[in-house]
């Protein structure tokens, strides 16, 4: 990476120094995370309202969720958060191979998460525990039991899409790390993806108890 004196290649023209560019990128990322929190916030609000209106349906329906798969998924996502943080740390220390290894592990764990999700979804589709008019399962008491599954599929579906987006970004990071684009001076993209990934994990930390444990 060409290292011209005082004007490294990654610095864009309108920033006075690398520090200002890095802090700007982080501020921009945090504001983006704020919009993500409010986007999911809308669904958390829907959850709060529908749970307050029919608590018994939510309780009866949550029993049908597989707590073990949910717990496993939580552990998988927490571990991927740890490996992502370690990936950033190793690039801060300039260890390229360690970063590649940690990124790959994070990617793999994300894939495991989605696979587990796939099993849960296919099991529900098979049973007919689906939102709205697709709901054909008759094992849950209450007038509109599909409401629980509408909110469940909305929230875990949107979360799953964000996991997919995270995986794509991490894959893009793996490519650029292997092309030796990053160094201990310039690792902002990895740090930003790390922040995004930690937020995805943070949202699951709230989704998991709300659906699997409490219901």
């Amino acid at each position, binding site marked *: 990476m060409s290292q011209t004196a005082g004007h490294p290649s990654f610095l*864009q*023209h*309108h*920033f*006075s120094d690398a520090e*200002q560019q890095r*802090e*700007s990128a982080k*501020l*921009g990322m945090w*504001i*983006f995370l*704020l*919009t*993500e929190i*409010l*986007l*999911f*916030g*809308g*669904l958390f*609000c*829907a959850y709060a*309202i*529908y749970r307050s*209106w*029919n608590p018994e349906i939510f309780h009866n329906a949550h029993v049908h969720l597989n707590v073990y798969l949910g717990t496993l998924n939580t552990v998988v996502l927490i571990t991927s958060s740890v490996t992502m943080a370690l990936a950033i740390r190793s690039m801060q220390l300039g260890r390229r191979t360690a970063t590649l290894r940690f990124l790959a592990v994070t990617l793999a764990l994300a894939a495991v998460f989605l696979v587990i999700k796939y099993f849960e979804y296919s099991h529900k589709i098979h049973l007919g525990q689906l*939102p*709205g*008019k*697709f709901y054909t399962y008759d094992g849950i008491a209450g*007038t*509109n039991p*599909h*409401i629980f599954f*509408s*909110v469940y*599929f*909305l929230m875990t579906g949107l979360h799953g899409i964000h996991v997919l987006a995270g995986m794509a970004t991490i894959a893009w990071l793996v490519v650029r790390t292997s092309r030796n684009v990053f160094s201990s001076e310039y690792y902002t993209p990895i740090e930003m993806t790390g922040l995004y990934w930690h937020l995805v994990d943070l949202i699951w930390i709230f989704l998991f108890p709300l659906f699997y444990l409490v219901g």
Partner: protein
Amino acid sequence: MNNLPSSSYLNRPQGIKSWLLTLDHKRIGLLYLFSVMTAFALGGVFAMLILLELLSPGREIIDADTYHQFFTLHGAIMIFLFIIPSIPAILGNFVLPLMIGARDVAFPRLNLASWYVYILGSLFALYSIIAGAVDTGWTFYTPYSVETTTSVISMTLGAFILGFSSIFTGLNFIVTIHKLRAPGMSWFKMPLFVWGLYATAIIQVLATPVLGITLLLLIIERVAGIGIFDPAMGGDPVLYQHFFWFYSHPAVYIMILPGMGIISELISVFSHKKIFGYKAIAFSSLGIAFVSFLVWGHHMFVSGQSELAAMIFSFLTFFVGIPSGIKVFNWVTTMYKGSISLEAPMLYALSFLFLFTIGGLTGIFLGALSVDVHLHDTYFIVAHFHYVMMGGTVMAFLGGLHYWWPKIWGRMYSEKWARVAVALIFVGFNVTFFSQFILGSQGMPRRYYNYLDQYQPLHAFSTFGSWILGLGFIVMAIYLIHSLFKGRPGGANPWGALTFEWTTSSPPPHENFAEIPRVEHGPYDFDRVTAKSTLGETI
């Protein structure tokens, strides 16, 4: 006569590709100018057709369904395609970096992306016109918006995508204001237009995601029928209203706050007097930005929401009005002992004061619970929000457009014709909309294709007003376009203002400043510093 600086951002680099792939905030501002003003013209055409139809009860030129589609398209185009991006994306993009002494916004690529996302969103929204239009009103209330056969999905998808454009701009401006201010520019040495944009950006970033999730749920409800808003399946249409208005009330402050920022600039510069209560105005912008998130329920006083919620929303609604009042008093006091010159931007600022005060005060009627029960969903509401949005934001936008016109193009507009246009717009606006206050309080419901005969005179009066208003806009369009070719050079600082954008040439070079300027005085220190107007001299 035509001695503009030989090279500026306008002609260096050349070629259509250099415009479509530009990262220069000034060019992106112009890209927005052309696309947003086209949307404004289209929305205006629908408005004229609506009022033409309302000239007399029964069928005038179109039938009921077409009329319902016209007022929905008028609302959706004017709000999502024109008034939300208008000031931040056009004037904000162009002026913000110049005002804080930066070379560009923090994320130029994101800035260009926001324009392309705007175009994509607009295409979806405008496609709905061809594919059977939308007849639900710009609010898309369920269950009607779920069961109607018109193309609700393409319009809501358009609005969903436009939300991203708004978030990108807001995010960009927050980071720019935090990180790229010139050395010596502390928070209280920033111009008040920058404060307005900052408060607006905060609302854009905090509120728009909820619009995103609301429209996403509506589209999923229409496509997959999951019953989240459908009462028969355990859902609740009032929940949709909560979701929708949680975004849409802060959205009206996204529209007005940048306008207020411009008015602070214009009143101070054209009174040649230091702005009165700089900190009061800056903090009331932030105050409005936060309190605006607590009041959305006043759109739903009669929607069957609980009486306690109605009380809380009514109480908080009154407190969102106070900062706006403080700003108006500060602007009027600024003019005290000033040296006031009445060019077009100042005339727009004064008509803003007149119209926005009426708009704000009629908000008090709607905040009071018992009076709102009578006035809700009548023409009183239509008049109220046109006085605040058109009398407020559009007047401020036109004032800002005229004020920065010489900086954008390097050429002055014709002052004589500008005064004609202001007069036409001011008179036409009042004739059109003040009559609607009386219509509404007399009980005329809004969104009515056919109406009882007793309301006909006021409707006709309102339609005549819209012709005067339309004429005013046509006159303005003509002399502004004419000034692009024949306007005399404005010079670097035609108005003798003290903010940074007037220290560089007009039109400014690609990198804005030869070197980043240092702040020596406040943005409005007219008592200590005088910048000679460059209007007379030739460069």
